[in-house]
Structures are given as structure tokens and as C-alpha cells.
């Protein structure tokens, strides 16, 4: 009995002093195999896709290993609950060892897009008799696009839970280039007792339909690699939901909503903030305020050429607005330190709220000072600014959602949560212009919280976007409309994800009379519309 007591005591002590990491990642162990053919321009593209899948697996608290497929070792997949192969490079050699293991394993295998022919058409694996379906063809554009036939069509519509999800397509008539990812593996089910078509895709120009996601026992085939050209109504969302089934982690149907008032700095209109606060408070809807702690206009762009800076202690309007909101369900998200960089235009004016802070967008590379220490310095300066004035942010949001890899990693040392979309890179100091093995940046939208992403961040989602008006006559950077109805439609799409969040942001700026837009009315319509869809409102502080 004494021994048992000692063991229990030791265990309790070990639990008490164990690092937080010891409790991390209790979900399924997963392996991502990706194409990385050496010495090509697209060597690192597969790694980019792997990062995106890895991030989604962070929703399931998965311990993920990412390995170039050519480095697969015989027997390796037996150490994982699920293995994903991302076929992103046409006819990249898939190791026989992997295919032999896949053919005999009872572990979950998910194969995406290309190269299934190496497995399915090699008789030595007995693919069709084992799985009850076969690959019949590789399909892409119905014809080569030309100036007289700019949209020849392809399997561009994926129907899921009665909604048509899209695949992006844009044709550049001046170069003939196509921004799209039209290729899909066409499959046919030959034995319905073994294989099921879970999701269908269609080719509106030809009228064809074909399986998009096929499941046969422990083996899944996704005809596409849904990590390219993504948006809020993209087929990417289908995968984010089906991952629950692939992993056997069936989160309950639950739909939360979040609203964030954006780019709130010293120049904020108190009237606009009070109007928005009053409306949300009336409905008992909690909300966030993306606050820029320190306002800077180093070139005097909005101050007749005279440099201007406003620390929070002097920003009386901002403090009035924040205090009013905080007493009525608002909470602060720290949105940069200054939301601009140095005294240079990075891309617009060098003014807070306009420019990038943690990325040199003009030259598309990290700023010269980029380092963990530099980013931490700015985070801590912003926090100090808030704290000295009595404010405690509940999360971090990177200006323009675009920070360097080092800055994103550093944020985890200061902030427990981030609340945003995120840009990731295939290297910490990326080279996007290399002729071979160039790097990629990838922006990712999340429909649900990610417990730990590739950079170690906990990410709360912003999934819908924001209302925009074309007011280019008075603000050249605001040149298109994105209506409240657009955002509401996005919310309908994200609701197909069983635990999808309807999360959007809104600029109080749209209520200012000089702008002349129906900002408040549209904001109300959107909030009301999202509520009517059955979402329940929350804020970062209420989320684990």
C-alpha cells in the first residue's frame, strides 16, 4: 500500500511539474507524405500543401510528422493512426515500400490527387479487387483556353451538404496563363460493397459527374488537392469537415460566431464605436476590438507633412471608445504595435492601420531587422502600452495577417492565442525567386480553432472576411464591394463544417459620415443574419 502511495505521489508530482508540452497533442498520430522532386521550380510546393494539412490536423490535436515521400521507410506508416499522401507533382515516383505497406495496412490511408496510377494500375497491388474502385483517367481543363474560349471548363463544382463548393479559375488573356488547379483523378466504383462515393464533383460544361471523395475501408481517395487558390466558399472547406471522418474524431455539431471591430486606433470615431457597441450590447453579443496601441504617421501623410505619433496615454478618443466597449461586452485584441513599419511606405502611407508591420510587402521579404528578438520587442512594447493604460488583450492579430515566420513563431512566447488568418512560408527566410527549389508563401483561412499550427500558435478563426464598399473616389485602396450578403453566404458555407465558426470583422470607419456608406445598417443585417443561421456568439476569452 505504501509503495502504491509513493508511486501515486511521484506521478502526481511529475504531473504537477511537467512542462505544458507534455500534455500537448493527445489526438491521433499522423504522417504526411508529400512530393519533393529535387531540382525543380516546384520542389517546395508539396511542402507548402503539407504545411496546410498539418495546420488543419492541429484542430484535432494531432502529432504530425511531415516527410518527403521519397524518404518513406518500409513499415513507417504502422507507427501512425493515419497517413496522408499529397500527390502534388505529376508522376513523381512513389516508393514501392509505401504502396506495399498501404496495400496491406489496416491503418487509415488518405491519397490525394496525382500518382494514384502507380498504385492502382500496378497489378501487383491488387488495387481494384481490394478497394472496389479504380482510377480511370486524369482530367483537367476540357480544352486549352484561348482568347476565344477563355473558360473551357473543368470539374469545378463540388457538391457537399447540398451546397456547390467552387474551385478557383482565372485566365490571363494577355499571357494565356491560367491561375487554377483544374486537374483531378477520375475514378469509377466497381464494387459498391467495398467503395462509397462520399462527395461528388461535376463538370458543368460537359455535364459529367464523378466521385470527389471515395472511401473503401481504411483507404480514402480525394480526387483533388484542395489547398490551392482557396477562399470562403472553396472546396477546401469540404476537406476541413471530412477530416473528422478520416481521423475518426467526430466533433459534435456546434456553430459559434465571432465579430471583431477592426483597426481601432487613435483616430477612431467615438460615435461609430458607441453605435456599434450599443447595438451589440443590446443583443448581448460579446465582441472584440482589434486595437492598435500606438498610432504613428512618421511622414505626416495625414498631418500636413508633419510627423505625428500618438501613444495610447494621449489617445483620449480611443480610450473613451475602448472603455465604453469594455463595459458592454467588448474585449481587446492587440493588432500590431503600430500597424506600420519604420518611416517608410510599406505599401501605402507609413501610417498606422494602412501598412504592414512585420513583413516588407514592397520587396516581398522579411524586413531587415526581422528576428525573434525584434518581433518580441514590438509585441512587448505594444503590451506595455496597453497595460500602462489598464488594458489586457485576450489575443494577438498580425497586421494584414502577414508576418514573417520568425515573427509568427515569436508571438507564441507572448500571446496564448492568435485570432486571424495566417501566412506561412516554406522557409524562415524564403527565396521566392530562386530558379530551382524556390520558396512559397501560403495564406490559410481556418473554419475552426487550431490548437497548434505549424508555427506553434493557437489560432482562432476569422473565416468570413469583412464588408467592403467601393469608395475609391475618396480612398483609392477601397475599390471593390463585398456586401453583407456576401459574408452571410460565406457563413452558410462554413456551417457545413460540423464545428465551423462564422467569424468576421468590420471597420468602424464605415460609419463615419464622410464615407457615406450604410455601414451600421449593413452591420446589423449581417449580425442578425448570422444569428438567424443558428450561430452562437463568442469571443477569444471564452474559448479554451
Amino acid at each position, binding site marked *: 500500500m505504501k509503495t502504491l502511495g509513493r508511486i501515486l505521489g511521484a506521478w502526481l508530482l511529475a504531473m504537477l511539474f511537467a512542462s505544458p508540452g507534455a500534455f500537448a497533442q493527445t489526438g491521433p498520430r499522423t504522417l504526411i507524405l508529400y512530393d519533393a522532386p529535387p531540382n525543380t521550380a*516546384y520542389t517546395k*510546393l508539396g511542402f507548402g*500543401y503539407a504545411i*496546410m494539412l498539418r495546420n488543419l490536423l492541429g484542430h484535432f490535436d494531432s502529432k504530425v510528422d511531415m516527410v518527403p515521400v*521519397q524518404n518513406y521507410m518500409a513499415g513507417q506508416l504502422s507507427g501512425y493512426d493515419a497517413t496522408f499522401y499529397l500527390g*502534388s507533382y505529376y*508522376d513523381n*515516383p512513389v*516508393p514501392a515500400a509505401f504502396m506495399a505497406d498501404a496495400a496491406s495496412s489496416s491503418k487509415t490511408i488518405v491519397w490525394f490527387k496525382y500518382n494514384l*496510377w*502507380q498504385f492502382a494500375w500496378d497489378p*501487383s497491388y491488387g488495387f481494384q479487387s481490394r478497394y472496389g474502385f479504380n482510377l480511370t483517367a486524369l482530367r483537367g481543363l476540357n480544352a*486549352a*483556353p484561348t482568347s476565344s474560349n477563355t473558360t473551357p471548363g473543368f470539374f469545378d463544382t463540388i457538391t457537399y451538404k447540398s451546397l456547390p463548393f467552387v474551385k478557383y479559375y482565372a485566365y490571363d488573356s494577355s499571357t494565356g496563363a*491560367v*491561375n487554377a*488547379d483544374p*486537374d483531378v483523378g477520375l475514378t469509377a466504383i466497381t464494387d459498391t460493397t467495398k467503395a462509397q462515393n462520399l462527395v461528388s464533383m461535376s463538370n458543368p460544361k460537359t455535364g459529367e459527374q464523378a466521385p470527389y471523395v471515395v472511401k473503401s475501408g481504411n483507404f480514402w481517395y480525394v480526387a483533388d488537392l484542395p*489547398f*490551392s*487558390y*482557396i*477562399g470562403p466558399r472553396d472546396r477546401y472547406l469540404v476537406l476541413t469537415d471530412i477530416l473528422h471522418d478520416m481521423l475518426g474524431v467526430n466533433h459534435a455539431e456546434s456553430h459559434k460566431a465571432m465579430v471583431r471591430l477592426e483597426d481601432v486606433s487613435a*483616430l477612431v470615431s*467615438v460615435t461609430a464605436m*458607441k453605435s456599434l*457597441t*450599443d*447595438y451589440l*450590447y443590446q443583443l448581448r453579443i460579446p465582441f472584440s476590438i482589434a486595437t492598435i496601441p500606438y498610432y504613428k504617421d512618421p511622414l505626416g501623410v495625414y498631418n*500636413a507633412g508633419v510627423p505625428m505619433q500618438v501613444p495610447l496615454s494621449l489617445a*483620449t*478618443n480611443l480610450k473613451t471608445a475602448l472603455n*465604453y466597449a469594455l*463595459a*458592454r*461586452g467588448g474585449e481587446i485584441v492587440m493588432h500590431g504595435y503600430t500597424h506600420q513599419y519604420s518611416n517608410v511606405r510599406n505599401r*501605402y502611407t507609413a*501610417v498606422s*492601420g*494602412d501598412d*504592414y508591420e512585420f513583413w516588407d510587402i514592397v520587396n516581398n521579404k522579411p524586413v531587415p531587422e526581422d528576428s525573434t528578438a525584434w518581433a518580441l520587442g514590438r509585441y512587448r512594447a505594444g503590451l506595455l502600452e496597453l497595460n500602462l493604460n*489598464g*488594458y489586457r488583450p485576450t489575443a494577438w492579430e498580425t497586421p494584414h495577417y502577414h508576418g514573417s515566420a520568425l515573427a509568427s513563431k515569436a508571438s507564441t512566447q507572448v500571446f496564448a492565442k492568435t485570432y486571424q*488568418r495566417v*501566412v506561412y512560408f516554406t522557409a524562415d527566410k524564403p527565396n521566392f525567386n530562386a530558379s530551382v527549389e524556390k520558396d*512559397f508563401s*501560403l495564406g*490559410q483561412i481556418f473554419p475552426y480553432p487550431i490548437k497548434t499550427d505549424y508555427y506553434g500558435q493557437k489560432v482562432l478563426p476569422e473565416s468570413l472576411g*469583412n464588408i*467592403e464598399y467601393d469608395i475609391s473616389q475618396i*480612398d483609392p*485602396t*477601397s475599390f471593390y464591394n463585398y456586401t453583407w450578403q456576401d459574408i452571410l453566404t460565406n457563413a452558410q458555407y462554413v456551417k457545413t463544417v460540423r464545428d465551423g465558426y462564422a467569424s468576421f470583422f468590420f471597420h468602424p470607419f464605415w460609419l463615419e459620415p*464622410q*464615407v457615406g456608406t450604410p455601414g451600421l445598417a449593413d452591420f446589423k443585417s449581417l449580425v442578425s443574419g448570422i444569428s438567424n443561421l443558428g450561430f*452562437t456568439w463568442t*469571443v477569444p*476569452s*471564452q474559448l479554451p
Partner: protein
Amino acid sequence: MHSLDQRQAMRALLALALLSWANWSQASNVMPPPLPPGSTQIRMDVGASPEERKRNERAHHHKGHFKKDFTRDDTLDALPVKPGNPSPGSPPKDKPNPGGPFRGQQR
């Protein structure tokens, strides 16, 4: 010294043999399907579409912000609220409370 060279040569041969086997074991036994039409025109990418990338960087300033007095409360420009007709968001007595004063009470 001589035996060391021999051992190194043997290792190199062995490595070469393993590499050849590895390459052979990775070689596909089937012909791939043909690439679809227009494949050479395709620009592959990863992550958000160009439209979504642009949405992330709206900057919102206008001429009304020119030389704006960041200490003048613009609610003072509005008409005063009549007595007995409180504003819809009647202020609670609470002090600023990050996280919200009404968790779990939304309508």
C-alpha cells in the same frame, strides 16, 4: 592505410548498390495517364486565391482623417439624447471588464 582505402571503396560500392536498388524500387511499373489539355498554361500555387490575399490588406483612411483632432470626442457633435429616452445601450455600472460582463447571457 591501404586497407582503409579498400574499406572506403567497399562502402562507396555498397552505397551505390543501395541507391540503385532504391531507385529501382521507386520506379513505376505503369505508364502515367496523359496530362490534360492546356496543362502547360496552368500556374500552380498554394494557399489563398489572389482575391483573398488582397482582402487582407485594406487600408482605411480618408480626407476626414486629415489633421484629425484625436482628442475631440465626435459624440459631442451629435444631438443630445432627450431626458427619459435613454440610449439603447444604457451604460452599466461595471468598470471595463475584458471578456465581457454578460457571458452566457446573449439573446
